[in-house]
């Protein structure tokens, strides 16, 4: 999730403190606090599963790159890495590298006319569908 959750929580802490002052316009206070509450709810929902989601997805993306074989080209090197650092920031950075690699792989596969390419393309779409299920939040707006 961007912006990063810790940065948003720090900003909300300041916002809530400012709205504790007695001279804030009630309508402005209500607007600020109701939006803050919505964001706090989303952060709470994302918190517990964040590391699990990233580890699971990074593994799935590396497996896709392995299966892509030569088609992975210059991004094949990403397939051999592991998530040794389990901080959210490190996992997110690895995830970003892998998803950037996935974009390149998918574009290359789309341009190739073969049954193998279509099969790999289907696997990529399935992984993309799963990626949206991992990111699902009941508190999302739509």
């Amino acid at each position, binding site marked *: *999730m*961007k*912006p990063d959750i810790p*940065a*948003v929580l720090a*900003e*909300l802490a300041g*916002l809530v403190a400012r709205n504790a002052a007695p001279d804030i*316009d009630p*309508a*402005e206070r*209500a*607007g*600020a606090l*109701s*939006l*803050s509450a*919505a*964001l706090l709810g*989303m952060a709470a929902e994302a918190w517990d599963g964040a590391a699990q989601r990233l580890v699971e997805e990074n593994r799935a993306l590396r497996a896709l790159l392995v299966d892509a074989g030569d088609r992975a080209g210059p991004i094949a090197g990403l397939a051999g890495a592991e998530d040794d650092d389990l901080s959210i920031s490190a996992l*997110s950075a690895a*995830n*970003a590298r892998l*998803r*950037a690699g*996935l*974009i390149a792989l*998918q*574009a290359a596969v*789309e341009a190739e006319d073969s049954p193998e390419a279509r099969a790999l393309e289907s696997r990529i*779409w399935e992984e*993309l*569908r799963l*990626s*949206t299920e991992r*990111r*699902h*939040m009941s*508190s*999302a*707006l*739509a």
Partner: protein
Amino acid sequence: MTSADLAPRLAAYAARRMPAARGVEVRDLSRISGGASRQTFRFRLTWTEDGVPRERRMILRRDPPASLIDTERRVEFEAYRAFFGSKVPVPEMIWLEEGTEALDLPFSVAAEITGFEAAPALLWTEPYLAAHETLARNKWTILGEIARADPFALGLDRVMPPPEPEGCWVRELDMWEAVLDADEAEPLPITRAAIRWLRTNPPPPAQKIGVVHGDFRTGNFLYDRQGHIHGVLDWEMAHLGDPLEDLGWSLNPVWNFKRDLGGGLVPDGVAIAYWEAASGLRADPDAVHWWTLFNCVKGQAIWISSARAWIDGGNREPIMVLPAWGLQNPQDRAILKVMGHL
């Protein structure tokens, strides 16, 4: 600037614009929550003219330092003004101030339309549930009226550059892809795949160059319990282009509000039929599909740019985070749905 600081400066500005008025005052100035692309306030303007006390309820929309949607306020102002008094209900525009002397930032002032609702959440409760059919008919009929309008007769081509009919799609796609390129904070494989598909499968040329509202959706109009619409709002992304673009935005699945209905109201086919009847245009299914997918990409670009504005520190208001956190993944799922991969 707080509301207390803003009120006297706004009153001084109003007094300069109303030379016959005496004792001009701004009362009950309060911020309306939401409004990610403009800071929005309601207030009562009171004054005396020819010895008679007068009052008018007004809306102030002021540019924030960095907004969710970077747009030209004159374009928005002229779009409202073009449709005022037509079958497309809009509030009356009163003043446009593009300078920064009066309130530090550019702003516009409009008459307030009072007594109606805008929040989509109310629509899923009684008594509004019973009015969905009427509301949907009015919603897509009004959108059809916008499509039917002649932007050249309205003079809007003076502030909105008209594209060629065959160039509408590429201009819009280029623009929003550039926003994604500039603002994305992490790779977006689903959105990028959609862009590649859109470029490989372009839509037919526009049937006409029309006015595109740019953000016509459930939540951007004022409605009543009977399903009548009294004001179409949020014209800040208005431009000239293919009228099907607006239809596609209205059918973007993120505006279904977790209901499997166009705009959360009626099946897409019903909405399209209302639009065709009012606009006099044909909604070719392939073209509607293209424009719906395009609008999923456009939506993602808007959510991403709100995150960017927050990350870069230009606007740290919580409203900038809400679409980034709350709509980015639903928008990706909307893309999957429209592309048949869900």
